[in-house]
């Protein structure tokens, strides 16, 4: 039996927005139950506002569920033991413009508990893997969107996490960068790391993932395996369109 990296059981997340009189509530995710298996690439598809980012934030402990339970490697997502095994790439990550990539990575490496020679090695390795080495002398302010995304990915890889949570990892990238990142993710997966990625690009998810979760208005509409979409006429795109309709 494959070990479980993440499990959601009956999870609900309702946002509360304070107003002048009372508050406004918005349920982003409701009665959500699924599992992510260790060592597997799982894709998350959905239209804007479907709750994809909320799910990712619930896994990384940035949000707390209103109801239900989220477990990451058997622990609460807020637990440092769980966080030590997760690497997160948010959509459009920000780095101080005046620093060089190695300096930014050094900081996040330290926050991941690395120090000394281990830290230097981790930074070097993450820069090599993400193709940032030739740009080591540049400042972040000189980086293109693609390079920033690579840097974002590099910071997520520093502590060799068992699970990578990637929110729109190829959004806005040129085809060559997409190709490189796809290769990198496939390589990381072959090392045994689980990857959970959300994307608007069905074809990207189709190329990488072995299983896809489709979310519609905060609920899980379908879970599709590679075998299922390969067997379906029109592939994953048709399944997705039918699900969101």
């Amino acid at each position: 039996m494959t070990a479980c990296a993440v499990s959601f059981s009956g999870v609900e997340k309702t946002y509360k927005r304070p107003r002048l009189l009372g508050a406004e509530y918005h349920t982003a995710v409701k009665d959500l139950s699924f599992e992510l298996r260790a060592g597997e690439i799982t894709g998350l598809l959905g239209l804007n506002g479907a709750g994809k980012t909320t799910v990712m934030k619930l896994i990384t402990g940035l949000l707390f569920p209103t109801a239900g339970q989220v477990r990451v490697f058997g622990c609460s997502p807020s637990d440092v033991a769980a966080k030590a095994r997760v690497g997160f790439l948010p959509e459009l990550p920000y780095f101080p413009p005046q620093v060089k990539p190695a300096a930014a990575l050094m900081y996040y490496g330290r926050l991941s508990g690395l120090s000394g020679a281990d830290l230097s090695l981790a930074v070097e390795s993450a820069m090599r893997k993400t193709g940032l080495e030739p740009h080591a002398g540049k400042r972040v302010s000189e980086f293109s969107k693609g390079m920033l995304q690579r840097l974002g990915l590099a910071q997520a890889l520093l502590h060799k996490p068992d699970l990578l949570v990637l929110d729109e990892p190829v959004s806005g990238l040129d085809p060559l960068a997409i190709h490189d990142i796809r290769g990198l993710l496939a390589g990381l997966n072959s090392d045994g790391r689980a990857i959970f990625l959300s994307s608007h690009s069905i074809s990207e998810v189709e190329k990488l993932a072995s299983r896809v979760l489709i979310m519609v208005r905060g609920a899980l509409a379908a879970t599709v395996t590679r075998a299922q979409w390969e067997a379906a006429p029109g592939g994953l795109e048709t399944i997705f369109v039918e699900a969101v309709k």
Partner: protein
Amino acid sequence: MKDLFLARAVAFNSFSESVRNRFFTLFAVFAFTAVYASVLAGVMAVDQEARVLTDFGLALIELTALAYSLFGVSSSLLKEAETKTIYLVFSRPVPRRVYLAGKLAGALLTAGLMLAIMGAIHLSLLAFRGFGLPEFYAWALAGTFLKLAVIISFAFFVSLFSTSAVSTLVISSIMWTLGHFAAEARFMAERLPGFKGIVFNVFLWLIPNLQLFNARDAAGAACALGPGVIVPAASWVAASYLAALWLLARKEF
């Protein structure tokens, strides 16, 4: 030990970002100009020039450091949330209490550096005008640092519930003012009869008495800060830190 290492990393990052901020240079230039411009007031005071230059300089140093610290602190957490930098921190094994302690330490380091730089500028002016180091100088700067520590930690607390950096700035500035009025307010509270007086007094106890650290103003009387002032300063910083932590622990990003 691991927490200390993490807090140090956050503190140094926060410190270096503050110092690299172009506003840091602008504030330093402003302080330099303002401190040197006080020569005019010194000349008008004729034989009291040393006193006037010292008082002007110390007050300008304090206000400049206060403005920069509040400016930095009020936008610090807000900016990290807006730019999603905080995602990269809180998705890592960094306890929120450690992160907050690191941010606070970083802000205090920045304030300390500002005081040191502006103090050096000020002393150079005094030397240029032929005056030596005023005997209470170190106490005055130490008192200013304690006041800044109290208000910076309070600003962190406010920034976690206020809706904008401006409101944090305003609320913290009001607390700064109240802190200097604390003794007078208590004097009035003690004269209020009955239950009203008790309630007012209990409320006033929440306001840090910044006059306690105002060695800059008490220079003519007892300027030395006794060990007794460290206890309330540390308590007020810790109180604001705990209140901020209470909010941060609940905060979602």
